[in-house]
């Protein structure tokens, strides 16, 4: 059985990025510096870099309408930006997700262990659609994706990798 301590906090997304004071600007600069250091880190940044590469490759393959030969909608730049923002909010200790594009053009992220799976799609209007299997248990739902990763997604990632 794997035992991975799942860090809830993420280096990549401050709780809010709307501050306009000098202190807020200093904080943003600091977060960017930490982000840069972490992404260059061999241990902490490797999964992130792999996921960013996979995201970019998926986008390149799915920018044309009917990219699957069966009427799939193209992934847009807006979809990519939202997906990248989602990646940045993920805990740094997570394994890289499997990244793909749904027939409606939305990016999907999936994590697996030996028998369980969590699948999350990031949609337009910042809507998250998710479903998971934990043994015989099944869950699914939708969440709004704001500044932070929704609590239910964190809880399910913890459950998957606990």
């Amino acid at each position: 059985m794997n035992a991975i301590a799942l860090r809830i906090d993420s280096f990549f997304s401050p709780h809010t990025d709307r501050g306009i004071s000098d202190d807020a600007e200093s904080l943003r600069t600091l977060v960017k510096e930490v982000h840069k250091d972490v992404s260059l880190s061999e241990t902490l940044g490797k999964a992130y870099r792999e996921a960013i590469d996979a995201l970019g490759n998926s986008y390149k393959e799915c920018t044309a309408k009917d990219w699957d030969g069966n009427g799939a909608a193209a992934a847009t730049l807006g979809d990519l930006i939202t997906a990248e923002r989602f990646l940045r909010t993920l805990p740094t200790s997570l394994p890289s997700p499997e990244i793909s594009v749904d027939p409606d053009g939305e990016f999907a992220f999936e994590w697996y262990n030996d028998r369980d799976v969590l699948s999350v799609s990031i949609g337009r209007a910042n809507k998250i659609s998710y479903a998971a299997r934990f043994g015989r248990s099944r869950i699914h739902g939708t969440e709004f994706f704001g500044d932070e990763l929704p609590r239910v997604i964190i809880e399910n990632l913890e459950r998957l990798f606990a």
Partner: protein
Amino acid sequence: MPRPNTKAAGRLETSVFLISNLSESQIWRIGEIYVAKKTRTIHGRADLPASAVEKAMLTLVLNNIPPRHANILGWPPEKDSQKELALELAEKSELRLHA
């Protein structure tokens, strides 16, 4: 995951082929002709028992356009519910990689 069929009032459907009693080479040939259409590369396929579709409360409808083609119908409109069913079907599927 299903996709809306714009020629059928946006009906949600998943395109499949019935492969019972076909050889491996015949199955891959279907993929090359009707899925890859000679412009893409087939890397693999998922073999799904028809009974799994019924167990997921979906419907398998054969239309033979092209031959052996069918659609999985009855998908719910909400994406998270679609995902749940897609995971259920994936669990019952067997991955076959193309040599």
